[in-house]
């Protein structure tokens, strides 16, 4: 029994240490936002002497509100497009017996392996040729395109396991193919849809490379660019940078803690 206790304490210690390692930078980020430039230089590890919101104000004035609005807009629209077109396409692919469509599915799976880094040059050329450079759609369409293959693979697996009898019953009940999808399949796919939507939303909310490439006008930048902007504007003003990062990160963390069950379930489902 005693040996069991020691093992148990040891295991707690291991996870506690990593948890602490994860937590400390976050805590430190928030505290740094409340400190002054001078304080942080003289005593990097100390606590703020007074809770001043000056740094937050400096950070906020770089236009974070606008970045947040842009990010929300881009994320919502992209995720909506991804879910809508992927679910319909995955359903057709999962139900077809056509060889041509099976090949199409393999093509989509293959496109999942194409890293966005390898198409930077033509992507830039296509977007600028279409005159979409510095429009939010310049980023929404590629985001949708990069989210679709993985979402199709996810939904495809889900639809393969979806009970066929329910669809057959619906067809006997008089549903057209579209009605089978809208009245029976979609209402029963809530968990898969939520899973895919959360995953894509987290990805798009944080996406940096394509935004860097395609959004140069500061009015339409998304949050990751906005944060990089902080670094550019306040090169050694760490309190302002950390205040800005806190403004962006803390709401996300709170949202995550409130809805963590869904986040975890969504991401855990990806391994299956």
């Amino acid at each position, binding site marked *: 029994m005693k040996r069991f206790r020691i093992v148990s304490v040891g295991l707690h210690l291991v996870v506690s240490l990593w948890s602490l390692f994860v937590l400390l930078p976050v805590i430190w980020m928030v505290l740094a936002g409340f400190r002054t430039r001078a304080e942080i230089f003289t005593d990097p590890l100390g606590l703020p002497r007074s809770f001043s919101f000056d740094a937050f104000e400096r950070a906020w004035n770089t236009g974070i509100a606008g970045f947040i609005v842009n990010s929300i807009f881009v994320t919502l629209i992209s995720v909506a497009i991804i879910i809508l077109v992927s679910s319909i396409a995955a359903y057709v692919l999962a139900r077809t017996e056509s060889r041509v469509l099976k090949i199409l599915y393999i093509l989509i799976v293959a496109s999942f392996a194409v890293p966005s880094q390898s198409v930077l040059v033509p992507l830039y050329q296509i977007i600028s040729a279409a005159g979409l450079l510095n429009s939010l759609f310049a980023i929404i369409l590629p985001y949708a395109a990069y989210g679709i293959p993985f979402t199709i693979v996810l939904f495809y697996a889900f639809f393969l396991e979806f*009970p066929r*009898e*329910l669809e*057959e*019953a*619906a*067809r*006997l*009940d*008089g*549903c057209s193919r579209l*009605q089978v999808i809208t*009245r*029976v399949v979609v*209402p*029963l796919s809530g968990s898969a849809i939520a899973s895919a939507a959360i995953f894509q939303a987290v990805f798009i909310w944080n996406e940096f490379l394509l935004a860097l490439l395609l959004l140069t006008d500061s009015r339409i930048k998304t949050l990751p660019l906005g944060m990089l902007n902080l670094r550019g504007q306040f090169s050694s003003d760490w309190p302002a940078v950390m205040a800005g990062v806190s403004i962006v990160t803390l709401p996300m963390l709170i949202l995550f803690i409130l809805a963590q069950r869904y986040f975890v379930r969504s991401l855990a489902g990806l391994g299956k």
Partner: protein
Amino acid sequence: MPSLQISNLEKHYGDFHALKSTSLEIEEGEFVVMVGPSGCGKSTLLRSIAGLETVTSGKIFIKGRDVTHREPFERGVAMVFQNYALYPHMTVGQNMGFNMKIAGRPKAEIVEAVDRAARILRITEHLEKFPKALSGGQKQRVAIGRAITRSPDVFLFDEPLSNLDAALRTQMRVELGRLHAELGTTMVYVTHDQVEAMTMANRIVVMRDGIIEQTGSPLDLYNQPTNIFVAGFLGSPRMNFLAGKIDSVTADQVSLTIDGSTQVLSVPAEDLKHAVSPGAPIRLGFRPEAALTGEGDGLVLPLRARVVESLGRETLIYGDAGDIQSIESESQDGMFALHQPRQLRVTHDDRLDVTVPTDAIYLFDSEGQTLRFARLAS
């Protein structure tokens, strides 16, 4: 006009030939049960009737209308699935009324039809519940109710009772019989359970390898199977078979010998459906209930009891007859099954001599076709 007519239906799945020129006519109000081992094509046939499978060639008529290429809902059929296929996101009432809602019927009409079906099936108090709150038997009733509200020309059942436990299955068999009597609608029922087939059908269709082997009333099929497959398929425990050959043929008697036995049996030549010549291999068959204990006239089997199942009002004995082996028995071990409608005090290894009266013996030719039906007392 037949309620359902199928002519020369063919179905290929790639290289697999699922239905081989299948034809069948079903009259208005019949309860037809299709049975056969798995993969025999019975489910494919049912699903083709429903329109859930497209057929390679052939035609399907329902009440005289050619529905071969119609959408499922245009065919006037309703189907009850093995695992119920209830919509989990709809209440019982919504499940039952869904087809009418899709068809755009007025609300009052839907409510009335659902209430009527619920009354027939005695599930009125469950109408507001969701399927997951119901037991298996209740779910199956809802699935049947959904079929009733469609008021179809033909009901299709795809092994509807196989997910239920034994007691519920017996109860639902009775209820389905009552429902059929009440509605009087044509019903086509697929099962692999020959008890369901025997108890519910007006007519049984026995299928194997995409071919209809025989159709007929349960007792006709039981008493006069057209071949050794049908003879073995209906009845539980199944018919006992023995290998033998024709010994001699005279004008009015045919004598035969049985592998492993010195006995010579004689049957009247007029019983045989076609002529045989001496030396031809044959198979003998007898039902487990046809054997009598004790010695007498007929085939004598010196059994040693190996397994005894005492069920109270009946006794099943599986016994070993030494050199005389049964072939194609359920357990594949050469033992004979014996059924006595009374209690027998027999235990393992007891010696038990039984006699099968010559009149109770079926004969099959080398092709498996029936050569002689048992002459029954009835």
